């Protein structure tokens, strides 16, 4: 059974559907094209920026690759290990107490 409110609501919707459709204004088409062009400009600018960014990223990657692969002429490899260098720069006051070489020697004996 359809209630009274349902009928009222249907009547309201029918009246709403019967309301006149707004007429397009004289500026409808010019404004539409302005909006299209504005968005086009924005899209174009964004695309141009994105392209520039991508090109810069590619160039940077290439530059870094070249830098990494080119052999360095002034590269001097150390002849000593890190521990040797460390031991030389900080000579121990009492090496016989802490030196691993001496301990190994004593253990072997």
């Amino acid at each position, binding site marked *: 059974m359809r209630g009274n409110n349902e009928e009222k609501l249907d009547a309201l919707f029918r009246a709403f*559907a019967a309301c006149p459709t707004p007429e397009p204004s004289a500026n409808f088409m010019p404004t539409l094209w302005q909006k299209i062009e504005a968005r086009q400009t924005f899209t174009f600018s964004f695309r141009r920026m994105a392209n520039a960014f991508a090109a810069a990223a590619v160039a940077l990657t290439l530059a870094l690759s070249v830098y990494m692969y080119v052999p360095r002429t002034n590269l001097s490899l150390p002849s000593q290990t890190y521990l040797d260098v460390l031991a030389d720069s900080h000579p121990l006051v009492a090496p016989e107490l802490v030196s691993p070489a001496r301990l190994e020697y004593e253990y072997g004996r």
Partner: protein
Amino acid sequence: MLVDFEVIKRAQSGDSGAFNEIVLAYRKRILGHISHLIARTEDVEDVAQEVFVRMYYSLDQLRAAEVFEPWLYTLTKNAAYDYLRKQKRRQEFRMSDLSEQQVTMADAVAGGKAEQDDQYHKKIRESVDALLGAVSEADRILLMMKEVEGLSLKDLEKIYKVNENALKVRLFRARQRVLKAFGASDSKQAGKAG
């Protein structure tokens, strides 16, 4: 179809004259649809232009000219939905928030007492707009397409790409919410009168 498939194909290939032809053919219809979906006449033209801007930029995505109208309707629905989402004016609007004048108008419409003038139409729009505050923007659009635009469930299926039963359930629930809001305000009105 208000334009030939050929015109749509020409517009797809970038012919601005063909695009203009489509807009001129459909703008009145789109304005009508939007005026039912958003109810605020002052913003109808703006939303209609948004629909055509979207159409311009996505026309190349239209695979077959045969589905042009449902596709355009989908663009219209989406633009109206976006507009309603942006309009934060809904804010848990309920029928109880309607003014007495608006409730009286709803009753007057049912009795066929009101005069057919601009003021009357404006009040009808306001009443419907306020009533539809009881449902979400998405349900509002669905309800309007069914109840006011008179679209069939088959048409809605094409637009929403969901099955008929799911649409029926959504429509039923939305209508029940609107009815509840309408009933609540009606009884409030009757209480005041009594």
